């Protein structure tokens, strides 16, 4: 049993290992051919970046920054989840909203979230307090995916499901609970997964640009590295940001979605 599980994990892991290997290989290749910054500094390799992460952990820089960033991500994401869900529900329940709000959401979704940064900075980053500005950017980046996920999965419910609900006399909260909620769940979770990617992206844009020495996250380490010309630090931050983005997706959202689809027979078991 245990061996089987191990084998399964290995089998699931190897494509990822290969992909990461290729990426690191290309990176190392660039180092070997001697890519330099205009200032003449050599490009740090993967080994340098990992060593730098070790150093940043040791000097107690990166862990607090990571915690700070994850906290922002979690709060911003949850707010986006609430807002996106409310808007999605409103659009589903009130047909008049459908056409207008639907295309607006699609438009918002295609907007790079970095465009919200100047507005957020101007209106919300008051007196060195950047948190509200950061949340705003994250919410604007992530909520459209949630609302769109809910809306499009509602639109994709087979008409027969509605007929069935009506023929059973399902109404009110029970109708939503037993039919609508369950039927839209896969699309909702797909929206949640996409929203994570968007909120992580938005958060980095916000941290990088809004910046603040008072409470710094991963984005600020990256920006710090840039302004001090500390290339290893920059790449250490970049690597950490990439790994966290992938890890949250692979450990939280992907299994959630896969389990859901498998139970409904929508992917092979």
């Amino acid at each position, binding site marked *: 049993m245990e061996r089987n599980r191990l084998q399964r994990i290995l089998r699931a892991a190897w494509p990822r290992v290969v992909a990461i290997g290729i990426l690191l290989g290309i990176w190392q290749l660039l180092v070997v051919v001697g890519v330099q910054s205009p200032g003449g500094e050599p490009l740090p390799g993967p080994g340098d970046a990992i060593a730098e992460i070790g150093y940043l952990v040791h000097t107690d820089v990166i862990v607090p920054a990571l915690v700070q960033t994850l906290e922002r991500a979690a709060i911003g994401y949850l707010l986006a989840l609430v807002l996106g869900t409310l808007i999605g529900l409103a659009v589903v329940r009130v047909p008049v909203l459908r056409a207008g709000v639907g295309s607006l959401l699609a438009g918002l979704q295609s907007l790079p979230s970095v465009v919200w940064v100047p507005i957020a900075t101007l209106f919300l980053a008051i007196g060195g307090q950047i948190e509200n500005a950061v949340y705003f950017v994250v919410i604007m980046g992530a909520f459209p995916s949630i609302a769109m996920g809910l809306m499009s999965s509602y639109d994709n419910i087979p008409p027969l499901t509605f007929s*069935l609900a009506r*023929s059973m006399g399902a109404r009110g909260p029970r109708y939503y609970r*037993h039919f609508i909620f*369950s039927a839209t769940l896969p699309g909702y979770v797909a929206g949640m997964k996409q929203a994570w990617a968007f909120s992580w992206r938005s958060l980095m844009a916000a941290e990088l640009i809004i910046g603040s020495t008072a409470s710094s996250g991963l984005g600020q380490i990256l920006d710090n590295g840039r302004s001090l010309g500390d290339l290893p630090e920059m790449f250490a931050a970049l690597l950490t940001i990439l790994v966290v983005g992938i890890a949250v997706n692979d450990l939280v959202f992907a299994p959630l979605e896969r389990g859901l689809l498998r139970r409904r027979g929508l992917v092979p078991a």
Partner: protein
Amino acid sequence: MNVALAPRPSVVTLEADPFVTLNGVTKVFGHGKRAMTALEDMSLEMARGEFVCVLGASGCGKSTLLSLIAGLDKVTSGAIEIADGRPAVMFQEPALLPWLTVRRNVELPMRLHNLDPDQRNQTANRLLSMVGLIDFADHRPHQLSGGMRQRCALARALAQDSELLLMDEPFAALDALTRDSLHDDLNRIWQETGKTIIFVTHNVREAVRLGDRVMLMTPRPGRVAQIWDVDIVRPRELDSFEVSGLAHEITAQLRAGAVIDGAK
């Protein structure tokens, strides 16, 4: 509401006031040039507890008729009256909810009507045993065969415990043996509960075996072609002399009118 399948007297007499009345029912899909008359001027009265089988070629409007009676679509003209209650529908496709197990699917109508868990569980067990799915209670619909899905849908329709049961080719996907045993079950349930049943089928013998009356529809537009009273004592056998005899007669009528393709 009633406990599911509580015994009721199996009186099949035509009462003075009918349970289901179709009065000049016409259904047109689309508008203008695209308009298509699916049903035209259909009238029928059904007594409480009656079992009517509907025969007709593919596309002649049988499913349309059922969805109008179920109140899932509106008539273009004419009227449909049901004395009381909401019909339970067994759709042509199983329409199982993929996120629920077989048991949960069957329990769904009882959940919607707030039956207590004990009763729900008991009824589900009984219905699942009846349709031979008790060992698959914890499977999900995608793990079932086509015929098993139909049987699950049958159990669910029965769990709804409506007085009026609308069935759209419920046994089309089943092998002869399973079909035969479900005929027995349906016949028994109908006799025990006094449900009123409208049963759509392509199979003439099936119609004769089950129905008090057999209604034949003409295609494009769908109309009532002819209605036969089936005065054969129950329980009937699919290959009995009487059933075969009437089935022959109906089939001959079909051929004459060429209203059904490849009649059995």
